[in-house]
């Protein structure tokens, strides 16, 4: 084919795509069939998504054709000091399963050592690696784990830091933004909590990256929008799946869920009912003329009528009352008394509620505003016993390593079952003799009750015990 083309074929990385120059249309068709490459007159070459790199390289190699390949900018990594724990059987199976193809998803329940599996794979693959995590807390946690396990000070891309190194950690949002520039710098890309990846924009983090080796980690691959099937081509098919029941009672602590209803104070109740009535009567009024009137319609209307705006405001005020019900603080005091001096972790439904708890009990509060240093100090403080308890908002929903805590108290949150599973995972982390308890404090006679019911549908909540109030 080189006889037919004026120049030798050239393959390069260009803004998250591969650019192929110096190959005639006929040769491209012969080699790749139709459809994969798209002609781009602006650049004088053909483009396809960078994710195709491994397949395209294979095709060239199979056909025995030489190509001037300027894509890969990754290199071999010599880890300064590998110090990884001995793998348990399941972990070993996961590593072996992934190693067969060098791409794919590993499904393991929270607390069963996904990180160690990934670090082992990194240690063996020994190539430039990018770790993509959902939030910056997790990004920093990966940074720490890489220092501890592989002795490497990884680069950080995100949280207003842009320090790219051959091994780096980042968040999904930063990865999407920067992949157009960084997509050819890594031979292995690891997607932590990879159920986040198939989102319409976030998938660019995989699609615009040329890394031939890909690893996805998650406890809960399903997405309510059904897009998890796309993980097959974005990362690779599931290579290992460890069911939660296999983990329960073995590496994870045995657990029990206790639900405690609380009541609004008389003043709160009066105000709550007033607000409910306001919302209801507005919607009822609108439904007289439009039987299909919906929540979306209400939101859309707030621009047009002050009444709609008042109804929306009433709705949020109502939510705030159930979230921040005073009685919750009283029940919290009871639970603290009951479990003192055992460490407790409290999950709040909003930043405001988390701060209310923090200010009432003077326990540290993990929120988005916490700097890296403070966050570390709080987590280590709980672990070493300096702090008796901490309160967190959704920051800790996923994967952030928490010190051993046998008591978790949920005082609000949304109804998704994935969130519930992940939260439970926090408490169950690490085994011991004591049974772990998860308390759920719910405002009775409010919509919070319905959300709690929905939450418990998740199989992680099976065996819930109710406590009479």
């Amino acid at each position, binding site marked *: 084919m080189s006889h037919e083309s004026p120049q030798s074929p050239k393959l390069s990385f260009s803004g*998250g795509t591969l650019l192929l120059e110096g190959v005639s249309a006929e040769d491209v068709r012969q080699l790749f069939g139709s459809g994969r490459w798209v002609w781009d007159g602006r650049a004088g070459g053909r*483009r396809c998504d960078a994710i195709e790199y491994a397949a395209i390289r294979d095709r060239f190699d199979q056909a025995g054709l030489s190509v001037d390949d300027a894509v890969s900018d990754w290199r071999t990594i010599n880890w300064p000091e590998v110090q990884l724990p001995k793998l348990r059987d399941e972990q070993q199976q996961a590593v072996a399963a992934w190693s067969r193809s060098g791409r794919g998803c590993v499904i393991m329940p929270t607390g069963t050592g996904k990180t160690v599996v990934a670090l082992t794979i990194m240690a063996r693959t020994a190539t430039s690696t990018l770790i993509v995590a959902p939030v910056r807390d997790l990004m920093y946690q990966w940074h720490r784990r890489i220092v501890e396990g592989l002795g490497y000070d990884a680069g950080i891309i995100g949280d207003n830091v842009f320090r790219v190194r051959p091994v780096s950690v980042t968040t999904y949002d930063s990865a999407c933004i920067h992949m157009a520039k960084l997509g050819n710098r890594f031979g292995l890309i690891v997607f932590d909590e990879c159920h986040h990846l198939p989102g319409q924009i976030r998938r660019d983090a995989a699609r615009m990256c040329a890394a031939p080796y890909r690893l996805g980690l998650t406890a809960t691959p399903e997405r309510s929008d059904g897009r998890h099937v796309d993980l097959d081509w974005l990362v690779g098919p599931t290579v290992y799946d460890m069911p939660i029941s296999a983990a329960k009672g073995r590496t994870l602590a045995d657990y029990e869920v206790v639900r405690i209803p609380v009541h609004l104070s008389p003043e709160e109740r009066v105000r709550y009912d007033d607000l409910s009535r306001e919302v209801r009567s507005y919607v009822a009024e609108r439904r007289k003329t439009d039987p299909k009137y919906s929540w979306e319609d209400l939101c859309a209307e707030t621009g047009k009528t*002050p009444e709609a*705006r008042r109804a929306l405001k009433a709705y949020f005020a109502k939510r705030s009352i159930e979230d921040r019900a005073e009685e919750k603080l009283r029940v919290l005091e009871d639970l*603290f*008394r009951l479990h003192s001096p055992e460490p407790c972790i409290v999950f709040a439904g909003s930043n405001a509620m988390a701060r209310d708890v923090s200010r009432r*009990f003077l326990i540290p509060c993990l929120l988005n*505003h916490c700097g890296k240093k403070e966050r570390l100090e709080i987590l280590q403080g709980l672990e070493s016993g300096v702090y008796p308890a901490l309160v967190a908002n959704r920051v800790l929903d996923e994967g952030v390593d928490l010190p051993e805590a046998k008591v978790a108290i949920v005082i609000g949150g949304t109804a998704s079952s994935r969130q519930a599973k992940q939260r439970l995972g926090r408490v169950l982390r690490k085994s011991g003799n004591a049974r772990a308890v998860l308390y759920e404090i719910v405002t009775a006679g409010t919509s919070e009750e319905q959300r709690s019911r929905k939450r418990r549908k998740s199989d992680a909540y099976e065996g819930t015990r109710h406590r009479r109030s």
Partner: protein
Amino acid sequence: MLTRQHAIADYDSGRIFPDRLTQKLHRPYPGYAERMLRVYCRGIGRTRKELHRAVWTILSEAEDCPARRIEAFCKLLDDVATYDRDARGRAAALRKDVFHAAAERHPLVRRADRLFETEEARVKADIATRLGRPWRDIDRDLFADVIEFQRLVRFEGYADGAALLARYNVAQVQAALYDAVAMTVWATDDFKTILRYAKLAGLMHTITRTGSGQYCVRFDGPVSVLRQTRRYGTAMARFLPALIACRGWRMHAVIRTRRRGWNVGLDLSHNDGLNSHLPVPDDFDSHVEEAFAEKWGPEPRDGWRLVREGEILHQRQKVFVPDFAFQHEDGRSVLLEIVGFWTPEYLEAKQQTLKTFEDQRILLAVAAPVAEKLDTQPEQTIVYKSALLIKDVLERLNAVQ
């Protein structure tokens, strides 16, 4: 700039109309804008939350003001405000002190009993004594680094209420552009500025000549040939203020809506009365250019008419807009580029550009000290001392076949 969460738009017959406040339909808004500016001007020391609440109070008088518009104004005001972000970490240090002091007395109970004597009020009073400040102050400062409790230290502000409203109108168009998949600009003027700012924003261009001195430029990015993508919408939004500051343009963008994924059109032109905070581009890059154009005048000389930035030369992603185009009545056309200022890098880049477009008829007017450094064909070059002379240029023009 606003975020997607602030975007307000109407849709009609496949077109999108970003929210726009006009004198005719929104008479009270200049008044509101002035009041909002006053709130911030006098708001030094107040928390973000208090300032936003004050803006809410002002705009809740408006009959037709959606929550997003109120939030948008808060954002635009915050964009030109400086808050104390507690960079030294005083709040975090205070928290550490307080939580440490309270840890050994956990749990803080409402009322002491035989099991727990650690009464909330007493523990707090003890900590206050130990830190030497009243508990009220401690409680106030404990979360002073949280975004909504940060205090205003400086407000650069806007020139006046009208400037704030102008910025709002542009910002809403930008917010619509975040979801753009393609943008096309038809231009008859200010090519240099348009192409330079698009490039600065990181966009790729496809240039088509639609007539003498008229061009159509499609802006998008590398991935756009593979699929419709909103990836470059932010870059298009960043580019918008520069475009609005230009003259003689019309723009059409294809917006892919979030809720239903439909494509709608956004149309805009320099006649729409949007005001950019950027100045109108300078007519001339240098005095030499300006003096020459003035001397030449609007009338043709020997049949040659002078047009500023008359043509765009382009090859793939390389673009060159020479300072002037000479257009002869008989259809001949010659370009003129003036090289007055120089640095070694600048000269090298210029020479590279000239090589790319060597098949074009380009005259180079080069200042005498620069001429020594430049290696080009002599017949192309006119060396000038302090000013470029018309007779020298005409001589070369008339020699062109």
